[in-house]
């Protein structure tokens, strides 16, 4: 006992700086965010002029008078669902492809992970160039095939167009995760299946997928959380528009807190709702993964 305390004492100076830095830079700001969300502070006014409104901002959000809030919750959930579903399927496909011996595998892997190494804002810019109605490459292809031009970032399609960019940014991470998972699987069951003449689909469905299940749940958790906090690319592509078409919660927070109304207090309340939503979904997914591990 004394010994373990002694070691702890020795470890303290090594571990303290990071722990302290992260505490000061995350825990304190979250507490302060909660406080700001209880005020009616507006951008540009002296801090001393803030009024304490209690849960007023939250009531305003959930009470039904704020039509945009519930829209943005729905947009966030739809966006997260599209990005998670899309990047899991695509990531699995790419991982299976890269798991085989293909020519230039290192190069292909490098290209696949490039979106991870690029600022989300710049990624958004790249797709904005391609989505452009007049001179984007997508409409050039569509027009030469079908003779029409599509307004990709219009009201009806903007959320899907933005989700494609989200998949572009999330799928590389999913791919790396699944690839590591595939490489760590034991070989024996696969060889047995081959001897018994199982088809590729059967092997995937009854061997690969069940064995990867724990990894799939973890990847889902991270992708959902990451999709919920997406801001940069959507800001670049649509700024939440047109209208409220792509107004996910971070963009709504931006509009309310820094955009046309600049009510930072209410923006803080939206931010806190986003934290709660993220934590709720994370808790659900963690519980699911526990269940599957016990089953």
């Amino acid at each position, binding site marked *: 006992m004394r010994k*373990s305390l002694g*070691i*702890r004492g*020795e*470890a303290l100076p*090594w*571990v303290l*700086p*990071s*722990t302290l*830095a*992260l505490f000061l*830079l995350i825990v304190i*700001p*979250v507490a*302060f*965010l909660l406080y*700001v969300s209880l005020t009616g502070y507006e951008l540009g006014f002296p*801090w001393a002029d803030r009024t304490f409104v209690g849960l007023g901002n939250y009531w305003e959000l959930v009470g039904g008078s704020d039509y945009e809030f519930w829209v943005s919750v729905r947009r966030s959930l739809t966006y997260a669902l599209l990005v998670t579903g899309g990047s899991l399927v695509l990531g699995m496909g*790419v991982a299976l*492809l890269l798991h*085989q011996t*293909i020519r230039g595998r290192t190069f*292909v*892997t*490098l*290209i*696949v992970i*490039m*979106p*991870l*190494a*690029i*600022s*989300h*804002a*710049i990624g958004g*810019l*790249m797709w904005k*160039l*391609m989505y452009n109605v007049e*001179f984007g*490459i997508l*409409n050039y292809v569509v027009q030469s095939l079908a003779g029409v031009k599509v307004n990709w970032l219009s009201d009806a399609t903007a959320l899907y167009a933005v989700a494609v960019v989200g998949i*572009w940014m999330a799928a*590389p991470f999913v791919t*790396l*995760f699944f690839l*590591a998972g595939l490489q760590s699987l034991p070989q024996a069951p696969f060889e047995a299946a081959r001897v018994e003449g199982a088809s590729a689909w059967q092997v995937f469905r009854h061997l690969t997928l069940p064995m990867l299940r724990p990894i799939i749940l973890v990847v889902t958790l*991270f992708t959902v959380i990451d999709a*919920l906090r997406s801001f940069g690319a959507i800001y670049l592509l649509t700024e939440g528009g047109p209208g409220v078409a792509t107004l996910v919660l*971070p963009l709504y*927070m931006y509009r309310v807190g*820094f955009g046309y109304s600049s009510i*930072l207090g209410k*923006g803080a309340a939206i*931010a806190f709702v*986003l*934290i709660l939503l993220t934590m709720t979904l*994370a808790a659900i997914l963690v519980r699911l993964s526990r269940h599957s591990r016990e089953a």
Partner: protein
Amino acid sequence: MRRFLLRAARNLGVGAVLLFFGFPILWMVLTSLKERIYLYQPGRWLFPPTLDNYVAALTKYGILDYVKNSAIVATGNTLLSLAVGVTAAYGLSRFAFRGRDAVALGILLTRLFPTITLVIPFFVLAFLLRLLDTHILLILIYLTFNVPFVVWAMRAYFDDIPREIEEAALVDGCSRLTAFIRCILPAARPGLFATGVMCFILAWNEFNYALFLTSRTAKTVPTAIAFFRTERGILWGEVSALGVIAILPVLVIAALGHNVLLRGFSLEGSQQ
């Protein structure tokens, strides 16, 4: 025949993957090299390339200042993240103490936090402390994501360095700190370098905090995109040039030593 079809399907798949993930980058590079008249001919692959957009971005729009800001912030933050994170990584690797796993997990979980929500408290706090639009503000705030990365990456690295190395030094009468500086750090140099490169990229790319917390003097490259929205629309050629400048460090690193990127982002993925 079956084998041939399988091979064809696989090659098609690889082609589609390369197209989806790589083409957006290529398209931006192409756009940045186009004169205005060629911008409106998306189907034209052969055109006389021009550097006019880069010249305009660098001279008319003062991108050089933003490059300088990004370099200062990314370098400063990388050094600080390494200094703070490496010691913790060593502590977590070498000492068994109660709550070690909790500390390690806690540091890791910070990466899952929806950091976009922190722009509001950071904005108000920086406003009150008169730190808005300064380099030091971004250098400090970027610790939130780079310290956990350093701790995780370097802890794995230290675990692989045999304890005998510093134990020999300790027996010789060195202090723990001296042993760490003289024996461990030199042995970990490749890992330190790779981790530092990753920190630099992550800080260089950061957009959300920089967008909200800087305006003129500390504005970084990714946030400068907004400047190219004029009343007549977006200056596509110039903004593409800026985009290429923004991804240039990554392209250079990818060309020089792609292993750093491959391992780094696998690590970043696995720690998440």
